[in-house]
């Protein structure tokens, strides 16, 4: 995976992409495909669905580039891209359960990853993967963004539409819940 260029260079790519430069947008795709795919995959646990959703994320990103340019709060392209990805995952689950009158984040169900995902993993990694799948949606998203996506608190807050303080609280709760699941103590609630 290509390394993410420092801030100015990425801004230059985004500026060119906004002007309709497809080469620049292709470069942004190359930079962020793996990260977005991983974020989506760990929420849907299905390769085909993750690929479809990831492709939609980038299509929508290109379509919405003029909005990104105008948005003063969402100045970080990476966080904005994750925001689109998150919304796509929520829409995906809403489509599957149209009658569910759920909070959009609770609409992301807990799920077990497919067996083929677990076969080649070590025991501790397998347990972690299972525990991650059993977290509620918002907790899982915070952990994926912070520890796999390596987003800062402000980027995570921007991606999820939350405050930085609340992201820290969610992170705390999510790690406590994860730890309880790993310890087999599912009675403990944060």
């Amino acid at each position, binding site marked *: 995976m290509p390394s993410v260029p420092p801030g100015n*260079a990425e801004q230059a790519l985004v500026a060119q992409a906004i002007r309709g430069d497809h080469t620049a947008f292709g470069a942004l795709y190359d930079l962020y495909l793996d990260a977005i795919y991983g974020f989506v995959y760990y929420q849907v646990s299905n390769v085909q669905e993750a690929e479809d959703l990831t492709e939609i994320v*980038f299509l929508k990103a290109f379509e919405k580039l003029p*909005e990104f340019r105008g948005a003063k709060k969402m100045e970080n392209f990476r966080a904005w891209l994750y925001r689109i990805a998150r919304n796509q995952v929520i829409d995906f689950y809403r489509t599957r359960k149209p009658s569910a009158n759920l909070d959009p984040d609770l609409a992301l169900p807990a799920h077990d990853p497919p067996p083929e995902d677990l076969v080649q*993993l070590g025991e501790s990694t397998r347990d972690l993967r299972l525990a991650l799948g059993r977290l509620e949606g918002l907790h899982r998203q915070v952990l994926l963004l912070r520890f796999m996506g390596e987003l800062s608190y402000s980027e995570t807050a921007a991606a999820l539409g939350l405050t930085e303080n609340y992201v820290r*609280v969610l992170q*705390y709760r999510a790690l406590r819940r994860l730890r309880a699941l790993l310890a087999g103590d599912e009675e403990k609630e944060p």
Partner: protein
Amino acid sequence: MNEREEAVRLARLLDENETGEAEEGFSPLLEAAAALRELPRPAVGAEFRREARRRILQQAGSRPRSQNERLAVLRLQLTRLLAATAVFAALLAGVALASAATQSALPGDLIYPIKLSLEDVQLVGADPSEQVLLEMRFTSNRLTEIQILIVQERYADVPAAVAGFRANVARTYDALAQLARSGAAATYPFLVRVETDLDESAAVLEQLMAFVPGETQRVLALAVEASRTD
């Protein structure tokens, strides 16, 4: 500590890459965070990576400019025209001070050469990156002058204004080349800014062509050509 204080403390420990040896209660949480960082990333299939890229760029290329893009361009043009109109109104009201009058001078005005000299003075002692920014600003001044001349229907002075605009575009590129030769690491972002500004200038000039006589249209076309970056 309450939950919020614990959340803040945990965040600080994570930021400092602490193992939590000094604070037992946080060790399990820090271990869980470390394990998450090590979790294998799912691999993107090579065929999907390639084919999705092709499909996305193909679809992106076939889409007409979005409504938002068109509105953004029109807003920029309106802003420039309003700015030009505001300057024109100030001149009519006769309220400009001497320095402001110089700044508002247009090609064909007696004091216009003074305005250009004052711009040249600003370049003295400027480092290469400042020179690029200054030349960009002066190019923008030339564009504004063209707009004001058209608003005032001073079509006879437009050729001189366009010549000045083309000269400033050339000087901007010269300044960029100088910046690159100076070994500055940040030349590329300047190039992007210059080209963005020139693209916007081209759009403004093209719109102006609809409001001027045929001979002036031919002159403006030269300015549009100088603005083209593709």
